[in-house]
């Protein structure tokens, strides 16, 4: 009965945020909307500040943002897409920071909600990437050639194509956007629920004096998990961005 005080909120309460404005319209404005706007604003402010300093030897924010751009340029774009992909660096940088800040809101006190734990954020992002790489592929290679390069692997016997074309169709045009959206959403949702779980347990133990005996364990786990979630936030932003680069690279270069 010690744990009778634990009151784990229903999952809908953790994820479905009440409207702040326009509640009865399709433009319902809630915490998630605030967070997505905030992550865009933070990214823009950081870049404006970094761009205004213009020091030859970068320091502070300029240093951090330039390192990030350098990382995306070299480790994501050039490695995956080659020199041809350099035009996509600003786009991919924006995508990376947008996802990163939306992820990191998970561990920011008083916010404690990753906007990317909502499919409302990850599905549109995945769809934007999906539409972009298809449009880029068609523009770059032409309609017929793009779909041929995407669906028909070269050097494969014709007999096998009956099997491979549907697989390629499924993996490239159906699974890709789904996997992008679900991977990010699933990871962030799981992390969010973990943190909530340990926070609720710690709080319950703290409130019930007898529980203080075992308090340090869940509280320490909460601290460790918070650190881990910061890492996951960076990792998932990186994975989403690098996969986008891979898909764009295939569209630019013909894939396979």
């Amino acid at each position, binding site marked *: 009965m010690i744990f009778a005080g634990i009151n784990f909120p229903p999952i*809908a309460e953790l994820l479905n945020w009440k409207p702040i404005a326009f509640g009865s319209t399709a433009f319902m404005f809630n915490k998630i909307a605030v967070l997505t706007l905030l992550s865009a604003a933070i990214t823009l402010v950081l870049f404006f500040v*970094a761009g205004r300093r213009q020091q030859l030897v970068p320091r502070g924010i300029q240093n951090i943002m330039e390192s990030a751009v350098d990382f995306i340029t070299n480790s994501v774009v050039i490695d995956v897409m080659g020199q041809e992909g350099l035009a996509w660096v600003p786009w991919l940088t924006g995508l990376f920071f947008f996802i990163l800040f939306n992820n990191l809101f998970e561990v920011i006190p008083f916010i404690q909600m990753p906007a990317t734990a909502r499919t409302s954020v990850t599905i549109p992002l995945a769809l934007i990437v999906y539409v972009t790489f298809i449009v880029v592929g068609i523009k770059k290679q032409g309609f017929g050639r793009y779909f041929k390069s995407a669906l028909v692997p070269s050097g494969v016997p014709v007999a096998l194509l009956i099997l491979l074309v549907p697989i390629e169709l499924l993996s490239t045009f159906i699974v890709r956007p789904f996997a992008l959206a679900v991977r990010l959403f699933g990871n962030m949702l799981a992390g969010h629920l973990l943190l909530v779980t340990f926070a609720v347990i710690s709080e319950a133990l703290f409130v019930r004096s007898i529980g203080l005996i075992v308090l340090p364990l869940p509280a320490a786990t909460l601290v460790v998990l918070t650190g881990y979630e910061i890492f996951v936030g960076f990792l998932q932003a990186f994975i989403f961005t690098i996969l986008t680069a891979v898909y764009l690279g295939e569209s630019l270069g013909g894939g396979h």
Partner: protein
Amino acid sequence: MVFGVVTQSPNPILPSTGEIIWSVISFAILLVLLVKYAFPPVAGMMAKRTDKIRDDLEAAESARRDAERLLEERRVELGRAREEGQRIIEDARATGEALRQEAIQEAQREAQMVREQAQLQVAAERSRLILELRSELAGMAIELSTRILAHELASSEVDPLVESFLAEADSE
């Protein structure tokens, strides 16, 4: 009620229309402003820095190449100077040797000449002495003959006269 269902989906996994719209708006605003205004200055600064570093490296490389070239030139010049010095020393040595040989030959020639002159002088002296001796002997013979002839006149005195003449000749 319809909007209520749409905007506040009961299933936490399903997306809500309002959130979709705002996340797309946020991302669109971010991309437009970032690509048009916020990113270019940062990228420009990085490109400028890259160019500066490349220029500096190229300048350093060119300075290094110049220094190496100068060093090589100096090395060649030093080698040439060393060879020149060696050649001068060799020349001096050869000249010295030639002068020495010449001096020796000159000295030998002079010595030979002195010796020959001395021999000539000795020979002339000898001839002169012989002639002198001959004329003296002739004189003595004449004087002896004269004395003998004179003594023949008093033959008893011939022998002691001859003896005294010979004693005189020995003492001279």
